[in-house]
């Protein structure tokens, strides 16, 4: 039986890649895309555990993850549009000017 381990390894790789992107990239859109990559890793993880434990809790958890991803995308893109309108740039550093 093809176990859950390799799916977990794959999920952790995707999560870490998304983390690296989130930390390094400066374009706001790419930053949010990186968080979506992290979500993909988590979805794989949840479904792998669902299959390992042979019940559907993990899959329904992954469905709620999709909801969170949609919420995050909506708000994130709203922020991108607002930043672009105010500053004319997509650089995340532009937000640092808002510090008190």
């Amino acid at each position, binding site marked *: 039986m*093809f176990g859950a*381990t*390799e*799916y*977990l*390894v*794959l999920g*952790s*790789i*995707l*999560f*870490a*890649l*998304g*983390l*690296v*992107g989130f*930390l*390094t*990239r*400066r*374009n706001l*859109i*790419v930053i949010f*895309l990186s968080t*979506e990559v992290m979500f*993909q890793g988590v979805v*794989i993880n949840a*479904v*792998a555990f*669902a*299959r*390992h434990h*042979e*019940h*559907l809790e993990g*899959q*329904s958890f*992954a*469905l*709620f993850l*999709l*909801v969170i*991803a*949609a*919420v995050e995308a*909506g*708000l994130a*893109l*709203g*922020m*991108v*549009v*607002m930043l*672009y*309108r105010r500053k004319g*740039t*997509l*650089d*995340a550093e532009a937000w640092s000017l808002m510090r008190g």
Partner: protein
Amino acid sequence: MTSAAAYMLYLVFALGGVGLYLLLPKAGVRQTFAGAIIGLLAVVGLILVLATQIIGPGSSAGFFYLFAVVAVLAAARVITHPKPVYSAVYFVLVVVAVTALLVLMNAEFLAVALLIIYAGAILVTYLFVIMLAQQSGSPVYDRRSREPFWAVLAGFVLMAAVAGRAGDLPPSVADASESATATAQSDQPGNTSAIGAIIMTKHIVALEVAGVLLLISMIGALAMVRKELPVETLEPPPKPLGQIGREVQPF
């Protein structure tokens, strides 16, 4: 997972980290070729480690390797490509690969939901915003990374920490009462109705909360991007009736 397998996995991750560091957009010399070579070496090493140490030799899992490699390479390109549009397109590839992996794990409903929600809605919205915020040329913040070394180190240490423990699975908690398993049952109605049943009974509160969350985020996004200026002030105020034709000069 044996400890030997875990150490080999760490080695592969270190290799991948070096490759990713070289691939990330930086000032100065371009090292993308070397980065790509090292990264591909790391992927090949990952396949070897997974195939020989974890799954065991002789196990045929071609589809898993195919889609896993596609997912990892595409995810690496998402975070390293200097053009946001390409990042989004590579992310579509990640989603498609993950969809295929979910189908391999007998989660068809979740796979199609992922495809419809991510690829059909979220990613299209990303592309839409990328097109709206179109910049000419390649701006400097796409060509420079922020602290690439420390970020790669942190990310790959995390990766090693999580993946190194991936073999130590707890025993399966499957019990007879939840017979709606995720395993394939070709004659049964599949896992769609089972997942629907579990969401609408056991997780009904979570479902309601998710709906409220979506509503709140929709209102929040609308409030955030609403134009501050009232529309009326964008145009000059209308002239009084007697003045409308006054600007026309005689020939």
